[in-house]
């Protein structure tokens, strides 16, 4: 690990100012992702700017929906009554992730920015286009068992976001509030926050240099209230998803009025499937509909040797999640 300096910022302005002065610096909140990367030599920030004193806290009802401060921790949000009641899928996505210890440390903003678990990215001894652009991607013909099948490119097949929360956020139209060095705020939907790898897998999201995640706001909706997050992994706990599905349905008289679908573990980014939603909306809430939606969701899959199973697994996961919600 490199030597680094550490400072605590009292205000967002101070924090963004520090990064303006020293663009290689990094923000740190819970540190559950960043410290791992630093220990592995994959991040070498000369300065850590501690943002935990920033006022990005609180879980409150607003006219646009539930606003969650980016510095709230995963457990606090996952167990919050408003989240549990209005957004079961969001609550479950948080509480099925990591371990209680990590969830107590990790911030919502940090969770949204966690990096891939691709073994080739995590070990500097390997070539990796995401880490060293142009160096190559051994995962294409190597160990790609856990990697993505949707939104991938010939440069990178990593699930850039390996976690759970953003999958649920993407499903339910959550919007991120970002603040830049000038103190200016902007709103970015989670579905537009992440970037597909294309030929530039090193660029993973739309954050500008020094920009902070202030909050995430999830709109109130019937389909969010009737939602679930289903996570599949071979180990019962403390593992990333092989496939997951965040789904919400508004069913009236057996007909689906509105639907939300996002998949995790299979996409180069949290994978909102408007194709599946299209199939679901207006259709009867039956297994046939769910299966058709699952087929639509995986239409564009580009599987490789060891992750081809994810097509079927993701479809089955989605169908199961829809059944659970429809039956609820």
């Amino acid at each position, binding site marked *: 690990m*490199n030597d680094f300096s550490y400072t605590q910022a009292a205000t967002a302005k101070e924090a963004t100012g520090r990064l303006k002065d020293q663009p290689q610096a990094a923000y740190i909140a819970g540190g559950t992702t960043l410290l791992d990367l630093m220990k592995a030599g994959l991040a070498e920030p000369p300065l850590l700017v501690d943002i935990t004193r920033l006022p990005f806290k609180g879980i409150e009802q607003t006219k646009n929906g539930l606003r969650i401060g980016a510095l709230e921790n995963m457990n606090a949000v996952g167990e919050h009554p408003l989240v549990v009641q209005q957004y079961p899928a969001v609550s479950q996505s948080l509480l099925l992730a990591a371990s209680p210890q990590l969830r107590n440390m990790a911030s919502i903003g940090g969770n949204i920015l966690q990096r891939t678990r691709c073994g080739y990215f*995590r070990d500097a001894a390997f070539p990796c286009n995401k880490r060293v652009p142009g160096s190559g991607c051994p995962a294409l013909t190597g160990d790609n068992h856990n990697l993505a099948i949707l939104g991938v490119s010939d440069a990178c097949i990593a699930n850039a976001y390996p976690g759970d929360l953003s999958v649920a956020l993407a499903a339910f139209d959550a919007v991120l509030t970002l603040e830049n060095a000038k103190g200016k705020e902007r709103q970015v939907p989670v579905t537009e926050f992440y970037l597909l790898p294309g030929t530039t897998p090193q660029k993973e999201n739309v954050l500008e240099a020094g920009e902070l995640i202030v909050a995430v706001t999830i709109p109130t909706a019937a389909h969010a209230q009737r939602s679930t997050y289903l996570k*599949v992994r*071979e*180990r019962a706990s403390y593992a990333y998803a*092989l496939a997951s599905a965040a789904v919400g349905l508004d069913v009236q008289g057996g007909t689906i009025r509105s639907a939300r679908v996002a998949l995790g573990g299979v996409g180069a980014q949290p994978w909102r499937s408007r194709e599946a939603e299209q199939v679901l909306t207006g259709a009867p809430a039956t297994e046939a509909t769910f299966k058709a939606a699952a087929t639509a969701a995986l239409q564009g899959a580009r599987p490789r040797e060891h992750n081809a*199973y994810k097509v079927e697994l993701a479809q089955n996961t989605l169908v199961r999640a829809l059944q659970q919600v429809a039956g609820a």
Partner: protein
Amino acid sequence: MNSEPAFFETPPQTVAVGQPLSRVDGRAKVTGAAKYSAEFNHLPGLVHAVIKTSDVAKGRVTGFDSSAAQREPGVLAIFTHQNLPKPVLTGETKEGKEAIGPSIQMTFMPLQSDQVFYAGQPVAIVVADTLEHAQHAAAKLRVTVTPEAPVASYQDAKAQLFNPGGKPDADAEGTKRRGKAAAAFAAAPAQVTATYTHATNHHNPMEPSATIAHWEAADRLTVYDATQGVSWQQRALSGFLGLPMEQVRVITKYLGGGFGCKGPIWPHSVLTALTAKAVGRPVKLVLTRPQMFTSVGHREDQEQTLRLGATKEGKLLALLHEKTSTTSQWDDYAETNSKFMGMLYQCPNFEAITKLAKANVMTPTWMRAPGEAPGSFALESSLDDLAYQLGIDPIQIRLLNHADKDPSTGQPWSSKSLKQCYQRGAALFGWSKRNPKNGLTRDGKYLVGWGMATATYPVNNSQGNARVRLYADGHAVVQVAATDLGTGTYTVITQVAADCLGIAPDKVRFELGDSVLPTTNISGGSMGAGTFSSSVYTASQDLWQKLTKMAVVDAKSPLFKAKPTEVEVVKGRLQLKANPGKGEDFAALMKRGNLTDLEGFGQGHYGAGYESAQARPAANSKSDDAGKEDHSGHAMHSFGAHFCEVRVDPELGTVRVTKWVSVVAGGRILNPKTARSQVIGGATMGIGAALMEQAVRDPHLARYTNPNLADYHVPVNADIPDMTVEFIDEHDPYINALGVKGIGEIAIVGTAAAVGNAIFHATGRRLRDLPITPDKVLAAMRQPV
């Protein structure tokens, strides 16, 4: 006429032995007082070493750029193959191998030349005043390796398979035969042929390997090392460094797990000693978790093809086993699966062939039940197939093929309670309610299945020494250069010593983990409890003999002028056998004789039969083949049975173990509490191998892609149900003084098969590739039943 009393007639009266005594070291561990090998930080001038390893799996080191690293603060030295002092001997020569002894597992020693043979091979060592400085400088050090195309495994198209049999230094088994297996198989009315694979597994003890080397003088070395055997390590280091054994001291007071990977000597321990000598300071080296995947061996990736031939009634006629696995460039290592294959069931015709491929990996090593664990997955799965094929209950087919004698030697068993294990396990599990047809039990979305399998593990021959020092005040110090892997050795030997000396456990201090103590074998191969208890027993007998001799010549003793052979010792009291009222307590005798304390020394044997051991001359316990002959003429094994329930989600591919019963017959159980933990741990590790554990090497670069505990999955609490564990009360008069068989390994044997058999019962699909992950279950579910 021999006037020595024959104390060997009776094992000690058990008071403490067999009780569920809580760990005597428990308090030290939970308060942090227990010092692990990396925690001896008091040494004056202690500095830190960090190993820099090769990124690539094959090539030549063509250059170093240490300019930036040298400039870093605190850096004391940077060693490469160009400037590191050489060991006096290495395992690469016959002479070196002999000097180093049985703990040499990988004969190759890194940092001797520019050649790179595996990813993770040490290519430089940085020494600095702090760990952080050493890590940072190591990161700045640039090592250029010109890469060549490596061989990743036996599955690699470039791999060349060979049969290692006949090579003088082959650890692998080569070919074994009994009867005419091929012909018998061809003629058998019922046949099962199947191929099984097993992923590379790593031991991953919680405590990483660590070494602190302290040269107390130019020719005297003390090493604090995370090892399963201080005596073995002492001998190995003396061999490598060319020092008399007496000038090497190895200390391991506590060990945070080993599972086999801390049994052998590995390069990092030797390199730390060489480095410490070169810098003239005590040096500490702790392997990182990723380095634990490339520094201390692993269970090799392997493929087994098994052919079973049987009568229509299910009696085995032929068993043919073929194993192919990956080894290193230098050592023909393969787990000896066939030993287990050849002895578990009565079968007149048997053949086993081993094939190896040399790849760019380090040498594999013993991992909990090496051979028995993967071998049992193949055999116990195929036997399950045969049972279903013939419509026989899985327990019945095992009873039908029960081996009343060891089929591989024809010897009678010293004891065998396998039938009781089946019976008790079935009762505890409720096996009689089993639906004989598979794929028929549903619980909502889940398919529910039951499976069982046999477990066994040999009583490996071993011997070692012990010293007991009994004080007239009723306290005792007992010493063995044993190690406690965290399994309870401190506790169970305290119990044994208490009973041997007739005092309470809290009056005994058991010291272990230091090579200045009486030499003994490693804690490995399930030999620890049996060897150490036997040694302490014989040392206690030595002590009682001395005290008896004192008493019979002491005019003030009630035993004055008695014949020593007429005297017995019961709970610390020396008394006449014929008239137990006549005698005295050891304390009275010692006090009268003006003795504050007295020592006894003994050499115990495990697996060779303690009675026959009496007649044998004292042997050097460090000889490779010590105790290999079995003087009692018995085959010695522990046995057991596992029962498992799984819930399979046929659409999502997940498998969860929901019920577990293990019944083990392992001779005398010294402490049911620590023994239960051993069985739970072994079965849990087996469930890990069955459902999730796999170290993945990139097929082109031969480098691990998941060398960390986030991506290499071992079971968590949520994966393991409340396990039912029972032991069959078993008295074995041949094993050793206390009839202890050792239970460190048996519980992992058969476990993966029990899981796989339950999956078969649940789904009607046989999964033969470990680990059985959701992708494989989904693929199987697509196949017709």
